[in-house]
């Protein structure tokens, strides 16, 4: 065995591949020479399955794609179908959707901080991140009955109204969050080991990021201010005042900071939405059996992991002819070999973690 060119199989069974990803890595001692992601171990044929389900039946299936952020998947799909139907969703339902989606973003980002810290070796932060996330999952569970696979949205609106008790609960969780974030920041942001492990690692420039189709926090950490909530607003996001955090380092540390800032911005959005929550209906008039005239539509939202889009093509029946999901993780993972150039073997896990991939979404 030569030390100069060791071929390592990271995964599909490996502690830090976030599921069943396999990375074929060539290393020269510790230096990464080549890296090739191999996906498909979680391929469930979702897109084929959707062709045999009605439009409403697809919604719970989308929960299973990005299982860390189920509501975001629901939202993207539901908005695409509504766009195809030309359906106007009541304002209150739109606001509730925003609240749910942002809670889901908080949950997803908090889980990410935990995963990421665990990859770098700070095991405790995994637990802290998960504890904080659990609080928001509990809110989703109170709202829709499901923790992870929420099925929180329906075509035409939202299934349940936000009652006062839940609003109080959400506000309480939001008030507690900054302190929890501060603890995580004390453990990570200023920590010298954390900074050694993340600063200048996994570099990708703005031009390369666009070239590789990167979206979401990874793109914003490279210096491109691209947030669909701001640039192509959907579901009343134009009503809310929030900043899009942009950093220019393009490294793992900046991706971490962008996500932390997004957590703060999301709490602001939720607060505004709760304050301004209009009265009214929560469901539009939707026929019991959805039959959508033939057409095609693409709609994308800013999911926690990046741009999540659904292409829906109908043929006039109650079942879609084709639903294609544009998953952010799938595109983001492609740039992993580029980010890993010249870095060490230990950095692969950090860079992979910083991309925030979910295999359920990549493999569909």
């Amino acid at each position, binding site marked *: 065995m030569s030390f100069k060119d060791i071929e390592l199989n990271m995964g599909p069974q490996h502690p830090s591949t976030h599921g069943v990803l396999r990375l074929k890595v060539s290393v020269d001692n510790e230096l990464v020479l080549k890296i090739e992601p191999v996906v498909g171990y979680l391929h469930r044929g979702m897109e084929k399955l959707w062709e045999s389900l009605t439009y409403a039946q697809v919604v719970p299936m989308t929960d299973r794609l990005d299982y860390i952020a189920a509501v975001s998947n629901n939202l993207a799909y539901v908005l695409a179908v509504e766009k195809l139907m030309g359906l106007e969703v009541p304002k209150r339902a739109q606001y509730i959707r925003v609240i749910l989606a942002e809670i889901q973003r908080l949950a997803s980002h908090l889980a990410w901080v935990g995963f990421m810290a665990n990859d770098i*070796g700070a095991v405790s932060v995994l637990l802290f991140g998960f504890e904080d996330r659990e609080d928001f999952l509990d809110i989703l569970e109170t709202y829709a009955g499901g923790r992870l696979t929420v099925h929180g949205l329906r075509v035409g609106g939202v299934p349940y109204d936000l009652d006062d008790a839940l609003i109080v609960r959400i506000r309480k969780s939001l008030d507690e969050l900054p302190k929890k974030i501060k603890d995580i920041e004390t453990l990570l942001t200023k920590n010298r080991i954390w900074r050694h*492990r993340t600063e200048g690692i996994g570099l990708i420039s703005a031009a390369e990021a666009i070239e590789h189709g990167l979206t979401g926090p990874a793109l914003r950490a490279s210096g491109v201010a691209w947030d669909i909530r701001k640039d192509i607003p959907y579901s009343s996001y134009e009503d809310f005042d929030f900043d899009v955090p942009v950093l220019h380092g393009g490294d793992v540390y900046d991706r971490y900071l962008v996500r932390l800032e997004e957590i703060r911005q999301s709490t602001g959005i939720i607060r505004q939405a709760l304050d301004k929550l209009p009265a009214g209906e929560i469901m539009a008039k939707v026929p019991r059996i959805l039959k959508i005239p033939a057409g095609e539509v693409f709609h994308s939202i800013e999911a926690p992991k990046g741009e999540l889009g659904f292409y829906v093509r109908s043929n006039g029946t109650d079942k879609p002819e084709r639903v294609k999901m544009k998953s952010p993780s799938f595109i983001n993972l492609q740039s992993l070999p580029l980010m890993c150039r010249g870095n060490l073997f230990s950095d692969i896990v950090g860079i992979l973690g910083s991309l925030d991939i979910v295999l359920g979404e990549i493999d569909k």
Partner: protein
Amino acid sequence: MTNTGFVFDVLIPVGKIVAVILYPLLMTIVMIWLERRVVALMQKRLGPNRVGFQGILQPFADAFKLFLKEDIMQDQADPLLFKVAPVMVMFSSLLAFCFVPLGEPIRIGTYRLTLWIAQSPVGLLLVLGLSSISVFGVIFGGWASNSKYPLMGALRSVVQILSYEIPIGLTALSVVFFARSIDLVEIVNHQSRAKIWFGFMLPVSFVVFWISAIAETNRAPFDLPEAESELVAGYHTEYSGMKFAFFYIAEYAHMVLVSSLVVLMFFGGWLAPFPNVPALAFLKVIPGFFWYLIKIMFFLYLYVWIRATLPRYRFDELIRLAWKWLIPLSLVNFLVAALLWYIL
């Protein structure tokens, strides 16, 4: 042969031999429990608390499970080295305990019962040397597994231990310099005479020694040879059952050993604290051995505390820390210590 002669010449040495094997194992078990509970409490969880009182029997349950597990050795492995490696790691850390004194000699009539197996004039050197032998076990284990992740873990381990031996030696040197002896018992006695512990006299030595000791024992944040998020389990990835248990126990025994060394060298071993304060003289009532245990426990706790807090270093940063910071710092520290000694 008189009855007392039999007791003193046979029974007590045999008892000591048994004790030197049982004491590290007992400490290991306590340490495993301590680590799991303390890490859990620091992570807002409770940790194992069902087996026995507050889960104290959990390590026994784990050990029992490991004894019952199938002992797997893959075909490609080098059978001899694969089997020798865990024994070697275990042996080196247990052997070192022979030279670690546990307390003052106890007088029973005319017989002086020493709480160590062997008092060597070069005790410190022997302990450091013996504990370093374990790196051979790690290399053999990593190499003999004939697998890539263990090999990388072993490679890291070698470089890490080689680098951190130097600051350990240099900082130990400053202590030796003051105590005018490499004998561990003599070092403690010197602290007793000087009425000040070296930890307070030479704080930089202590900190550098402690950091290097963490690295030497492959513990977080320097647990690179077994970094589970990168190398699965490092050099013992392919080990299972009893062989894995040997590696596991040896690691904890090593931690106990290093903590003992720190206590002996820097914190007065079995001496009661505050010898200068007359008001606290009652502390001397407690036997030295217990003081010793309390101090060791504190450092074991510190191990766990650090593990629960810090992320893991990267390989190059680890080496940089050793060569760019710790070694120059310990050299300067030695120089300052020498000057200090000269002036005093």
